[in-house]
């Protein structure tokens, strides 16, 4: 594989650092403090409560430690589902063309035009017991179009390449060619689309959560923001309620963005060949 750029490594380090922070700190900090009433409410940050507490008496540091993985989980799950659906549809659509391609494209193009927030709201409001999985599926359902489009474009450009003709001359069947020869060349695109997919999913998830439509009982980052708004944290000056989740989210998105930029360069190597 070609050299990955510095952005990618920067983003990856940041992402890994965040994960490590969140999972390793559990050993040093009591995360049960996320329960309501563990501390006195509205305590500002101090040596006892590093990030203070919110109106429910939840310890903010504990909340971050518990909430971040929840956001990660939904984001990564949703991103994976979105990529899987999108890439498969893109692969089929691009390679086989014809009616099936037209069909998939019509669906994809129409979904893209609908404001996703509207659908997400409708879906989230109507589901009784929203679980992390169903949330991930809903969000994935609206983010598969971009991977599908990108993968399709790549497959279209690959399928007429000379080496595919040589594959046929070597006796390979169409499906064999698809998996053995087309897929490997899609890896860089799959990687960068994946990161973008996770990114989009997380934003959508946090968006829903901050409207109070997240998973019941999960004090995830978006939900923290929701409650901080509900309880007018800005007005009451409880900055330690909304600042930590915002910082965390910013760092996560920054990491994902850097990785995506870094991978994007790999996905588009220059074709120069002269010495």
């Amino acid at each position, binding site marked *: 594989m070609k050299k990955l750029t510095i952005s990618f490594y920067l983003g990856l380090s940041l992402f890994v650092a965040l994960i490590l922070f969140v999972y390793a700190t559990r050993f040093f900090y009591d995360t049960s403090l996320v329960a309501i009433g563990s501390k006195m409410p509205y305590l500002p940050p101090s040596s006892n409560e590093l990030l203070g507490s919110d109106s429910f008496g939840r310890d903010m540091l504990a909340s971050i430690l518990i909430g971040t993985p929840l956001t990660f989980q939904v984001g990564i799950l949703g991103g994976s589902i979105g990529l899987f659906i999108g890439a498969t549809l893109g692969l089929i659509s691009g390679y086989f063309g014809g009616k099936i391609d037209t069909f998939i494209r019509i669906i994809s193009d129409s979904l893209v035009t609908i404001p996703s927030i509207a659908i997400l709201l409708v879906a989230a409001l109507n589901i009784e017991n929203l679980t992390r999985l169903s949330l991930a599926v809903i969000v994935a359902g609206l983010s598969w179009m971009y991977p599908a489009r990108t993968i399709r474009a790549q497959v279209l450009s690959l399928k007429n390449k000379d*080496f595919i003709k040589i594959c046929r001359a*070597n006796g390979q069947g169409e499906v064999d060619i698809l998996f053995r020869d087309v897929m490997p*060349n899609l890896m860089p695109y799959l990687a960068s689309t994946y990161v973008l997919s996770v990114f989009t999913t997380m934003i959508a998830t946090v968006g829903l959560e901050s409207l109070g439509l997240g998973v019941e009982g999960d004090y995830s980052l978006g939900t923290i923001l929701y409650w901080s708004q509900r309880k007018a944290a800005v007005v009451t000056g409880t900055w330690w309620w909304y600042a930590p989740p915002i910082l965390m989210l910013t760092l996560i998105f920054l990491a994902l963005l850097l990785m995506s930029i870094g991978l994007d360069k790999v996905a588009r190597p220059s074709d120069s060949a002269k010495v």
Partner: protein
Amino acid sequence: MSDFSLSLNEVSKTYRSRSGKAKSEVKALLPISLEISGHTPKVIAVAGESGSGKTTLASLLLGFQPPTSGTVDFNGVPLTALSKEQRNDFRRTVQPVLQDPFSSYNQFYKIDHVLEMPLKNYGLAKNSDESSLLIRNALSEVGLIPEQTLGRYPSQLSGGQRQRIMLARLLLCKPRLIVADEPVSMIDSSYRAIILSMLLKLKTEYKINILYITHDVATAYQISDKLIVLYKGRVVEVGDTKSIVERPKHPYTESLISSIPVPDRIRSWDKESAVIQHGLLNETGCEYTDHCQHAIPQCKNDVPSLRRFENNHLVACRLYENSPAAQPSDLAKTV
């Protein structure tokens, strides 16, 4: 080694595209009949410039695209109607050598991959040891050293080496017809001789027919027995290579031959200047009219039909309208 035949029956190819509101139609290849069979292996050269239809001819013969009219038959069966087994047989029997030694490879794999695949898919080796041996022998046959070639990625080898590996691949497949589309035009001229002499060897030693497509008549002269000259999709001259090159009949063939650069001051380009004219393509007339030194007004309106000379030498030019007309079957048999 059973015999085979690949034939074009009044095959033509037209590309239609719609850019914006305008529909455009390009007649890449006008109806042509050709019969290539395995009786005596030959090298048939197809010469022409870009836009002549030579690449289209190659891709039709290889089954890469369907013809707009007519059928391409393999052993009497149209390509579009082949059974799975017949299709497999066809793929193995009619093999390509492509122009670009870079894009012919999947950069993801080492070059070994392109040599292992046909042995595996066509069941040509019983086990991996035999496969290894066959591959090493094939590489040596084409003048490459297996140790210095195997295990490398395409980008680690030169264009000439990559093209030779493609020839080694052909040795492994044991086809009956090789369709070589400009196999040396992207290779340094000092290397071309090696590749071309290998192709010639494939004919003489391995009894394989070769269809050699090129824009360079000089190389066609060196290795081919029969020559087909294409101009804007039409066959303008066809017959024995030697007689055509030494005594070309069609004005376009003459021009093609005089454009061959020879490092010899006797035959330099200075003598004639290339005719540079840009006119509208005639719908009904001879396509070469605008560039032709022998053109008369009648040429713009009447498409000349193929006329026959001795030895199945056919020419399509009004200069020879007094010679007997040729039938489509004459063209088919000419090669």
